[in-house]
């Protein structure tokens, strides 16, 4: 069995344990104040994912590409806000991505 296969099996077991602990064990030990804060977790996680995703896409790129990455993210947010449609938002991101990868790079 290759090292990569062993790591995937071990990682799968570790991730399963994290998920079950989160559902079964963690909630019983959480203070009430922390529990109240969990309803803010959605927007916080989304913003963190967006920030890291945008940062990763722009890091190491030249100024034009980094600017286009940022413009794509901002345009996607604007379209989502105006249309209230995830389909349009994802379409905007796809157009921006293809523009960056096929036309600019």
């Amino acid at each position, binding site marked *: 069995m290759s090292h990569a296969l062993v790591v995937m099996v071990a990682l799968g077991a*570790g991730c*399963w344990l994290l998920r*079950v602990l989160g*559902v079964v064990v963690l*909630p019983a030990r959480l203070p009430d104040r922390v529990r109240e804060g969990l309803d803010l977790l959605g927007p916080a996680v989304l*913003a963190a994912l967006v920030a890291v995703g945008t940062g990763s*896409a722009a890091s190491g790129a030249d100024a034009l590409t980094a600017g286009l990455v940022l413009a794509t993210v901002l345009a996607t947010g604007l379209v989502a806000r105006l249309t209230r449609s995830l389909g349009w938002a994802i379409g905007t991101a796809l157009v921006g991505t293809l523009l960056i990868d096929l036309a600019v790079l």
Partner: protein
Amino acid sequence: MTAGTQETQETQETRPQPQPRQAALRDLATMAPGVVPFGITLGVAAVSAGAGPLAVLLGAVVVYGGSAQLVALSSLHAGAGMLAATVAGVVVLARVMLYGAALEGAFRDQPRWFRLLAPHFIIDQTYLAVTARDPLAGRDFRRYWGWLGGSLLVMWTSAVAFGVLAGPWLPPLPHLALVGTGLFVGMLAMRLRDPRSVVAAVGAAGCALVAHHVVPQLGILVGAVGGVVLAMTWERRSRR
């Protein structure tokens, strides 16, 4: 309120909620355009990092977390030991513990087999989809969760397999994962409903960027926790 508006409101109030399976498939269709490009990207990147197709596909099913899988395989490729690579992947996915805690209410009264097996479907997209809906309970939640998590897992694994197989023939698309970020941007834009959520989001983005710069594996987790703490602190001070 006009008669027409009242009638519309009454129609909406009496309209039956979609069946769990329909609701799950509807959410799946919403998530798919963001998930598939990321899966393809993972397949291409993992094979480029020297992982065999079997390890990549097995990881897609048993890990069910693209960022964790990619970090583990990249660490291994960079010369890290098996334990170090596994720990790096687990750290990346540590946020699913928080998702689990937030979903505890839906899992609480479920049968033991469901509480042990179904958490495997907890990922960013399923957590965000279920928390955007009216709460489901009992059998309805089991059906919704099973259809959403199971279908998304099949779609995810297929996308990864496509990336593994078609990677060598695809034009270089280094920013394809940005489409997945687009999905999160769209979901975020619709969840900024009050000052609390805006503070949480701005705080989380700032914390995530700083943390990602220092310890890349912890960026999302630190950002999420930091955003929640900042919003709670802000709320407590604004009440005084």
